[in-house]
């Protein structure tokens, strides 16, 4: 009580402008994460590891003995490892941007609680996006370490592939934030997972080159952020990237991040401040 009385008399801390306090929102999510991180190890780390082993080594044995003898002159496991790195970033990003966002809007009203403090919309969105970026970074680093240890990735360029994967993830995070905040129930997520994320996972060059698709589908694949993410990561770790190509992919992904962020700001404002 007495503390409140003192600050009321003029020593209340000054508040920075909106958008400069995202760190506070980030700190909240971090605290929350300390409680539940164990479960996320499974979905965020073991899943891609299982995929790498099953597809890369098990199925890889068939592919390497197959008609084409590997893919683009690579062992299948080397082809697929960067693909899974990027795809995992997408999966983590979408997972962290759907139910948690809806939960914070609707079930736990966390955003409302934050808005009742000096934090503004920009702080809330940026703080939460930063947290998702951290989650993507953790799983990407862990996966990269294991892929290197298993010999699936053998280049120092992996150090750049990890940020590339995080960028890929963010290209999904911000648009999905905008989508999630606009939803009234989780029915839309089912559509998102089943009709958008899953097809992208299977057809955006993760498991086989998109050139094998019919031309029309190949064009669609080119438009997906995941294909650009996969190509960027793969180019780096297999040391086949060109500077222009890599910058092109990264630029395209950045456009998605920025566009999504713009939509997310608008969506959050519409939903939370009326």
């Amino acid at each position, binding site marked *: 009580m007495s503390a409140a009385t003192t600050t009321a008399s003029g020593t209340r801390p000054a508040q920075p402008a909106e958008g400069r306090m995202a760190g506070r929102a980030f700190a909240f999510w971090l605290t929350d994460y300390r409680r539940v991180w164990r*479960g996320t190890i499974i979905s965020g780390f073991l899943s891609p590891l299982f995929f790498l082993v099953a597809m890369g080594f098990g199925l890889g044995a068939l592919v390497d003995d197959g008609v084409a003898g590997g893919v683009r002159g690579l062992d299948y496991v080397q082809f697929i490892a960067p693909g899974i790195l990027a795809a995992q970033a997408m999966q983590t990003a979408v997972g962290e941007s759907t139910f948690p966002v809806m939960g914070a809007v609707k079930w736990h009203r966390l955003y409302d609680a934050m808005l009742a403090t000096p934090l503004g919309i920009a702080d809330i969105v940026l703080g939460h996006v930063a947290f998702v970026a951290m989650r993507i970074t953790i799983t990407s680093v862990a996966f990269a370490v294991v892929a290197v240890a298993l010999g699936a990735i053998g280049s120092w360029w992996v150090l750049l592939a990890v940020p590339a994967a995080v960028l890929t993830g963010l290209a999904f995070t911000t648009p999905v934030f905008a989508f999630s905040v606009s939803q009234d129930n989780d029915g839309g997520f089912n559509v998102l997972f089943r*009709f958008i994320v*899953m097809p992208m996972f299977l057809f955006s060059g993760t498991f086989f080159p998109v050139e094998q698709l019919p031309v029309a589908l190949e064009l669609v694949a080119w438009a997906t952020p995941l294909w650009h993410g996969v190509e960027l990561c793969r180019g780096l770790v297999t040391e086949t990237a060109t500077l222009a190509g890599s910058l092109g992919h990264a630029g395209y992904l950045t456009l998605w991040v920025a566009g999504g962020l713009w939509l997310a700001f608008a969506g959050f404002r519409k939903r939370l401040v009326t």
Partner: protein
Amino acid sequence: MSAVSALARALPIPAGAGMARTLVERNARAFRHGWVTLVSGFFEPVLYLFSLGVGLGALIGDIDAGDGRMIDYAAFVAPAMMAAAAMNGAVFDSTFNLFFKLKYARLYDSVLATPLGPRDVAVGEITWALLRGLLYSTAFLAVAAAAGVVGSWWALLALPAASLIGLAFAAVGMTVTTYMRSWQDFDYVQLALLPMFLFSATFYPLSTYDESIRWVVQITPLYHGVATIRDLMLGDVGWGILGHVLYLTVMGLVGLVLAARRIERLLLR
């Protein structure tokens, strides 16, 4: 369905009023409001089939079906997708959906205030999971046949086989769900399912594994499910298939008894 409930009645499991069908009716009604989910459930195995069959098939070419016969990779992987879809669908219904109804919607609190008993709940929910599964399996089989990867009329028996896989996993999934405390526990379900999906001779033949570890694969239920459906779809039917069927049947019945008991303990305290 009446076979399931007759079977349930013959077993030492908790009381019911033989009215499980009304719960199935309830689920069907609820589902009409969520038809998108119904449609989407069909897509996943078909997408996998095309991704693996068309995309990877071109890289792999023909493979040894196990008896020296060379077959198209798509024909090899299609039965596995059907079996895995049966497993995934049944587990999703009996874990995720059931947990929601149990803990959040509190559906069964009101159901048990009527003549229905815990056995009706267990039988009703599993029956519903199986009906949905049958719908997906049938659609998948039609697509697979149209894609030319079905080699025999035996494949029609893959439909009941897929239901059997569904029964086995739904019953066990339901039992497991009654022990769950929070959504975080579902990560452990995932931890059991994903390796099974990836390693149960689904995407490549058992012979890929070193002989010393093959038995690990062979004790998983999905291995038996995949083997059954693969034999049927490839028309490669022998007595060995009965062993797989027996494994899944026992798993389903034991699961059913345990699930109904657990539901009774959970709801009728």
